[in-house]
């Protein structure tokens, strides 16, 4: 359970920009380098292309906000030793979870109004 001060910090960072959300989400399973993140994000978002410069710009911002940090641990990606790897910080993980919850609430609300089908619908 996050402490009170952490809770207020998390609240200040919400809602996350969609791109930031996808970047943090790409790091859930462990540290990755830029190319790994890009592949994972593009796979998750069905063909949306992410521009690497924007990826790094977002990473800089997320690093300033202490949601991600650079690491030497190569984690799930093994190729390319000279690359910079990023990992999720404790705060980053909490913010991601809070954002996911917020989005889930929104989706539930949409379902309640029959805007989207229930989970066991056609898709």
């Amino acid at each position, binding site marked *: 359970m996050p402490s009170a001060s952490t809770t207020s910090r998390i609240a200040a960072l919400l809602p996350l920009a969609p791109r930031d959300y996808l970047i943090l989400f790409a790091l859930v399973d462990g540290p990755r*380098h*830029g*190319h790994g993140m*890009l*592949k994972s994000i*593009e796979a998750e978002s069905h063909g949306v*292309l992410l*521009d*690497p*410069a*924007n*990826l*790094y*710009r977002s*990473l*800089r911002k997320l690093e300033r906000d202490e949601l991600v940090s650079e690491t030497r641990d190569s984690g799930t990606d093994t190729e390319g030793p000279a*690359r*910079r790897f990023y990992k999720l910080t404790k705060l980053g993980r909490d913010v991601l979870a809070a954002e996911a919850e917020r989005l889930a609430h929104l989706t539930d609300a949409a379902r309640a109004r029959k805007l989207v089908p229930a989970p066991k619908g056609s898709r």
Partner: protein
Amino acid sequence: MTAAGGQRGSRAIAAIGRGLYRTLLLAWPRDFRDANGRDAAEVFGDACADSWTNGGLVALIRRLGRAVIDVPWAGLAERIGDAPRPRLFGSLGSDVRHALRACRQRPGLSLAIVITLSLGIGANTAIFSVVDATLLRPLPYADAARVVYLRTHRDGAKSTGNPTAEEFAQFAPRLQSYSRIEARSWQSVLLTGGNSATRARYLAVSAGYLAALGTRPIAGRLLRPDDALPGATAVVVLSDRLVTRRYGAGAAVVGTTIAIDDINHVVVGVVPQIESDTPGLRFELYGPLPLSGPAAKATGVVAIAWLKPAVSIDTARAEFQSLGDVVSPSNLFWKVRELRDPQLALLAAVFLLLLIACVNVANLLLASGQARRAEMAVRVALGASRMRIVRLLLIESALLALAGGAGGVLIARGAIALFTALEPAQQLLTRLESIEIDGVVLGYAITIALLTSVVFGLVPALRGSATPPQAALREDDQRTGSRLRRLPGAFIAVEVALSVVLLIAAGLVGRAFFQARFADPGFAADRVLTVRIALPEARYATADRRAQFFDELLARARQLPGVTAATIGYGATPPPDFVTQGALQIDGSASEYTISWLSVSMVQPGYFAVMGIPLLAGRELERQDLSVDPSSNETPIVINRSMAKSFWSGRDPVGATFRLAEPRGPRRYRVIGVAGDVRDGLSLPACDPCGPQIYRPLPAERQYTDVLVRVADRAPLPVAGLRDAVAAIDPGVPADDSLQSGAASVYSTMSRQRFNAALFGTFAAVALALVGLGISAVIAHSVSQRTREMGIRLALGARPAQVRRLVIAQGVRPAIAGLALGIGFTFVVTRTMTKFLYGVSPTDPLTIAAMSAVLIGVSLAAIAVPALRATRVDPAKTLRD
């Protein structure tokens, strides 16, 4: 493509992607580039390689295109985002008016820019739209990215690269890497019965093939596995296009019986027109692929498989290689790669064209920008902010780019209409009817043009506005050694270098076309006239009736002025009309050959004389050969030279007998003669060996036959006479639309060469126009800037000829340098084009020399006009001004 080759390709693409990206990143603030530029470029390079590997050229272009648009804009936003945001588009109306006035003040330059952009954008959009609609579309399969083709080797035989249906039936159930495996095999069949016979393309398919293409029946059902079992009723599924063509729209054909090659088939379903995975092939009938029995042994198939999501291509490859006891596995093969080389050459040419247009625009803008430094300095002196000047120039550039875009759309429309006109038969471009101006491409081309004009319009302007006004004005006055002054020369060189590549490429393709056009097709093409006769079945029900018709027609034809001989034949002029395949077993020889493409001509005695095909050995078909019963005896045939060479390698084939197991049953043949090779547009200008061909006796009483007449040298072709002869015997027999000279039928098969020649010809013409325009405008501009210098030179006693030489040298020197550079580059580029060139060497010296001469000629003309004007300067006047 080998795995190593693929890896090399990916690495090269990653490197190109990195390089491009680093350039694009220049739009971003320096501190970002220092901290993350290298990483971002690395990631982009890897992503490009991924796109190429997984999605092919289309995915790669999509990624590159997005980056070209996104990265500079995002970078600009990032730069502006750090500073207080200026009102970039305040008082837009007045700025537009201002920009229009600025464009009007320099009408020549503005017009040159707009024309350049129109040509560049128009040609690009048109060609890319055509290429995209015809070559780049993904395979028609669902989940096309996971489709592989399974190829095999045949030991000790002519390798066909494809397994037989029998082999397919054996190995397909053993493979675990795929979620689905299907096979298909195409044949051309004759739809008989009714009042006319017609050729149609028939595709024998495995039971799930149509469903795998996402096809749903319009009426009836698709094929089922039990349709292919031995002894099952012969069934067929028709395309709605065939139903409309032959039976009339909306006809209830399901359940009826139709005759295919005289065998009755029950129509079980109708399906919509299906996109074939081979451009240019449209199928009209689908029947079950026999998976056992002699027909399965004789039918070569294309095996198509869908990789399971979790299985890598390497795993699948290894599994396939383990099938050694059934077939000799050759390789798994990604279908999407097959068209790559021609695609790349075309796209490279398109891109070169856009590059030339951009260089031209940059060139023009730099030249004018230099002149406008003074104007900018005055504006700054009068209190204009830099932002305001930037805004003004942005709007000016945008106006020019928009005008160019509008012109481009017009040109693209015209060009697409031209390409459509070149392909009336739609043999090559099956989807021409669906070609539209591709909005994405148009947007992409305009964006690049816009970026070019913005960047090159801004650079000199910013320099001008940064210089203290007094200095800029003084500099303007003196016009002394600016670094920018040397730039136009460099641009001329680059432009000439780029266009010489295109010009030589176009010259080579054109030469290949003409070589094929005027090559010897192996028969007297321009002295042969053919007419296709399909006798209405009701009135010509008996063989005697039919034979009588043809006897009478031949007698009448021989009476026509200029006609020296006449005969009937079927599939007897190129292109091959009747093609079969099968396993060939020569008596007394141990090896069995698989022939995947054997063209069959059915002819009568006298055929070779009519056609002017030389008989190289043995004898031709004679009257008694026509009555040989194929069920009990060997059918006497004449084979072509290439078939003799391929299968009898040096021994005399005359007298040899062999067995050919065709999909519709085995037949035995006896070779009685060898004739020269006949070539069509697909094999011209030369083929060695050409495809195998056999000449079989044609029974006189067929319902569907060609009449061939030989016309004496220099006599006109009796087109009307032959038509009248048919009508005189029976006005109900249509003959009009099938009258054709042999040369015309050969020409009709040259659509690919013709299309390539037109495409590259367009590239070259546009490139030439752009180069001429660019050089002329730059030299003219430079002359107008140096009027005062010219005046002084003339005043100090220089002769007009000296001044002219000065100006000409200024243009010719860089043009020559560019030519040398371009020719060097050409050697690299045209090597990739061998598929277009049909036997013309990619370094053909004649073409290179001729095209260089053309380019030099155009450059000289472009330089001469402004050079002449330079000497008309009145020294007294310029010095006074």
